[in-house]
């Protein structure tokens, strides 16, 4: 099994990383950079059945089980949304289904992206997290 750091440590790292930026503009610029750095998803994975509902921008989320860990790949047509995906993938990809299911997501608030947690925002961050956890629940059942 691949060596990965625990979710809480990855979350702490992100909180520290974002705390370097004082104002929202710098935070967003960093988020945009993370979005640009997100590995490209294979085009054949960008199908309608991988689309997450409830987003103003399109978000494709793909998952697979690699040994005992879940690997997420994703893409979006909006760059800020892609940045958010990059943050989520850094925390949740290559983790065990169990760890993903049990993970707390309040770090989003702590890194200063709280507004994206609002369900009225329709950017689907909440839907993205929910979908990631749903995949994890399914894989957890598969492994048991």
């Amino acid at each position, binding site marked *: 099994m691949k060596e990965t750091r625990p979710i809480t440590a990855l979350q702490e790292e992100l909180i520290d990383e974002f705390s370097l930026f004082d104002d*929202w*503009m710098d935070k967003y610029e960093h988020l945009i950079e993370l979005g640009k750095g997100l590995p490209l998803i294979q085009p054949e994975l960008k199908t309608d059945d991988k689309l997450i509902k409830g987003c*103003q*921008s*399109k978000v494709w989320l793909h998952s697979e089980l690699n040994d005992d860990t879940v690997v997420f790949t994703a893409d979006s*047509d*909006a*760059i*800020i*949304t892609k940045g958010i995906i990059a943050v989520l993938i850094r925390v949740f990809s290559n983790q065990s289904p169990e760890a993903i299911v049990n993970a707390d997501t309040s770090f989003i608030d702590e890194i200063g992206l709280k507004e994206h947690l609002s369900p009225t925002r329709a950017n689907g961050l909440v839907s993205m997290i929910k979908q990631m956890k749903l995949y994890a629940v399914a894989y957890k059942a598969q492994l048991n």
Partner: protein
Amino acid sequence: MAFDVQEIRKDFPILHREVNGHPLVYLDNAATSQKPQQVIDALVHYYSHYNANIHRGVHTLSQEATDAYEIARKKIQEHFNIEHKEEVIFTSGTTQGINLVAHGFSEFLNQGDEVIVSALEHHSNIVPWQMLCERTGAILKVIPMDVDGTLVLSEFEQLLSSNTKLVFVNHISNALGIINPIAEIIEKAHAVGASVLIDGAQSCSHIKPDLRALNCDFYVTSAHKMCGPTGVGILYGKREWLSKLPPYQGGGEMIKEVTFEKTTYADLPHKFEAGTPNIAGGIGFGAALDYLNGIGFDAIAQYETELLNYATEELLKIEGVTIYGTGSEKTSVISFNIEGIHPYDIGTIVDKLGIAVRTGHHCAQPIMDFYNIPGTVRASFAFYNTLEEVDRLVAAVKKAKMMLS
């Protein structure tokens, strides 16, 4: 009285708040307008001084509330130049008005009849007609749009026939702000014996429709887009039509006599106003009309055109900006995109700068499909916006472009 935007802004308490550390620039007026103190006061005064149920109590409060509600109906009648007061039906808003008519028309449509809608419609204007057609076997036809966002009237004429029973068009498109040639549409529809329902949700904050002159069969609108409260609007219908249409909802207020064998319905307008209505809302609607007429619709239109022209000019100076809906007849709505940037990203950044715009498909997915875009950024201006706010928008869009490119 000369139009003084700074004086007008004093009437709107919300315009003085900050958002994300910046003075609010509210440019989502096509979604809902802000409310002047005069309207807020009318609501507070009703609840503090004469709140009571209407049309039924013999006590003084009930009489005062009934009078105020009926005075509001009278103001609406006068504002829209409606012939008979009972042709003004209070609704919860435009959507309810449309559904009321669509529901009623189930009784008049047969297999093979046709209903025509426009390609510029809001989702709420498409779904009730699809449901109506499913119920009755009627066929839904669509007036296509041109690339400048205007309706193709020659195609509309081709669609019209003796099978056409109802034509439904919005007065102004919510996604693009284009003013449709409704007078011509109404005349042509009537020539083949079809009835016409006009959706005025987007128009009534910009222009004062003369419903008698327009001669449409139905007209619907909402108070909240014209400085009034949410949850109230009107359906105007010609008396002949309203008498023929069946009641929409059963309940108190809409009945004349009830026995377990049979109920007879109340006269217009109460036949369509089941249950306790939005009394405060109706009274607030009247106050909003007083307020807008105090400024004057000519002055409003003139000033909003100035805002529109200035904003259009300034936004087009930004490289990569495309404006959708470029027809010459339009209100102060600008729907735009920047090449290579998702509208959602722009909306997120400008919000951080205190500017409220709408992003997305504006509940008009068919229009977005027509342009093959995921959505647009929509800035919609009201008479209380300023040229300086246009500058703030333009600066914010430039900043967003810089960050996102």
